[in-house]
């Protein structure tokens, strides 16, 4: 059992990456100011943290980095509300507060020996990136079979994690696809919503495959329905949810879906689990 005083630890922004051309998504590389705390800090892909802008507020963000890197961690932020607006104004060297890690994380242990397909849409790629980088890390890569990525963006201007693409594509036994919603001059990769590309562009019928998907709710819905139509078991389709949260530890009362607290029992759920939960998200 963990005791919490609900107060954040101070962390320093080491680097900021402008992800999309329209600049509405930024990725922050941070480390705790207390070196010993940073050394001891550990998390699982799929877990999240509460980020504090001192004096303003706090909001949840999924880890976008792999825990295999112990020197720093990353998260990506799309500007939507008051906390994200303040975050976007922050500069390298500024101090923010971090609490966490929270949540269950992706079922990393039980994915050993499996084929993996990642289907991410827009900023939904952020939590998947934590697991992608973990799985493709050379220390871990041999634990998994074929790894395929289908990264979906609205337009070429909305692509993110471009600096990762070379590394992802050059990893052995790994297939990476990119798609945008509408045809666009100069774009030679896939076009169309991800659920329409599963059959043509992915080797979806490999036995023993686990699917990880995250993106806009409508995308998750269509992808899931398509996968179910193709005969994929809901227990092998895994997603991660977002909710309004304050405490991160299952107490403040706002992120529940029925009796499940997304912060504590999630944010990662299989489609089988979501099917058993009341429709309240």
């Amino acid at each position, binding site marked *: 059992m963990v005791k919490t005083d*609900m*107060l954040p630890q101070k962390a320093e922004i080491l680097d900021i990456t402008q992800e999309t051309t329209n600049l509405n998504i930024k990725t922050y590389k941070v480390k705790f100011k207390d070196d010993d705390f940073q050394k001891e800090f550990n998390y699982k892909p799929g877990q999240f943290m509460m980020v504090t802008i001192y004096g303003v507020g706090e909001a949840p963000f999924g880890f976008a980095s792999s825990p295999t890197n112990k020197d720093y961690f990353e998260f990506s932020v799309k500007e939507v509300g008051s906390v994200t607006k303040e975050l976007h104004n922050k500069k390298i060297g500024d101090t923010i507060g971090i609490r966490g890690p929270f949540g269950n994380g992706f079922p990393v242990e039980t994915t050993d020996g499996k084929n993996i397909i990642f289907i991410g849409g827009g900023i939904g790629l952020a939590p998947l990136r934590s697991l992608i980088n973990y799985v493709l890390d050379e220390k871990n890569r041999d634990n998994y079979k074929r790894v395929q990525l289908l990264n979906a963006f609205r337009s070429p201007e909305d692509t993110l994690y471009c600096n990762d693409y070379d590394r992802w594509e050059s990893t052995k036994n790994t297939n990476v696809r990119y798609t945008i919603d509408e045809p666009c001059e100069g774009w030679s990769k896939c076009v169309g919503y991800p659920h329409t590309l599963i059959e043509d562009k992915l080797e979806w019928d490999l036995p023993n495959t686990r699917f990880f998907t995250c993106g806009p709710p409508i995308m998750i819905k269509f992808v899931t329905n398509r996968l179910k139509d193709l005969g994929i078991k809901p227990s092998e389709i895994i997603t991660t949810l977002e909710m309004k949260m304050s405490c991160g530890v*299952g107490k403040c009362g706002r992120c529940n879906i029925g009796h499940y607290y997304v912060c504590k029992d999630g944010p990662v759920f299989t489609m089988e689990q979501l099917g058993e939960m009341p429709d309240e998200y």
Partner: protein
Amino acid sequence: MMLKKINSSQFEKLFNKLKKDYNIAAPILHQKGKKELIEYSVIDDFNKIVWDKQPDTSPKNIIFPQNTLLGNDYEENKEYDNDKITIVLGVRSCDLAAIKTFDQVFIEDEMYTDQNYQDRRDNTILVGLSCEQREETSFCDVLGIDAIESDYAPIYLFKDNEIFWIKINDQKYESIFSDLPDGNQQDFEKLLNFRRKNFNQSSFDLDIPVPLPEKEIFKSEIWEEMSEKCLSCGVCTYYCPTCYCFNFFWEGEGEDSTKYKNWDSCMFSSYTVHASGHNPRDSKDKRYRNRIMHKFSYHPLNYEGLGCVGCGRCIDRCPVNLDIREALKLTEQFLDEKGGA
């Protein structure tokens, strides 16, 4: 177990002795505008204590203040001497059961303990009080709570006119009372029996499964009907002894700012709104359902026992006369009809 029997003046002497070493909080009459409310306060005068009426608010504000400065215990509340333990006098069985639900969530939870809550709880001694008569809206008996006696307080009082029986359930506190005259066990049993016989049962009856089946209840249409007149004012949650939803607020700027934990309410429309504007509980019926289901389904599923103690305060306080008993009755009917169909 130790049993003592004293009269009011002996109790007053004990009170005056204890107040030197402890903060003593008890229900007293507060004049608030035109209204008179019985609420817990730290007191100096034993004779101010209101024994014979249910306090309008539970002692939740003592262990979980409406506005808690985090990382700096008690500083914000000048009423309490930080260095002293607080004795809370006269906590009825319903409010003790409510504190039990808090303890389950904030201390005994298998994943996370709330340090701030635990510190306050460790600095509090609860002294229970046996009820002598039922308040009109109370239905604790229907929910299995014994208004006459509870073992959740280490010390429990039974007031019989000018006589106080003191039952000390926890050996740790026996030394406080050791100089006082013992109570006769048989006479005490007689008092209990008399009280049980004469204590009026609530007129409300209820037959629902606990925990309520969540997926089935989500299909019920009673929530729209029930919440139609709800103002989303949140009064029910503020008076509720078991409601503990909270939010954080910051005061000051930058790294010197301070963080507060404040009561929030699941009945507020903005409570679950995402930054994107999406709101999973975007209408009154969904919010009302969440409040009832938290108490009768989610809390029992995640912890143990109910998340409602039947104190009746939400019924007394609702400005549009929403009655939780009616919601429960409609739920019972809904499940009956479904079962019969």
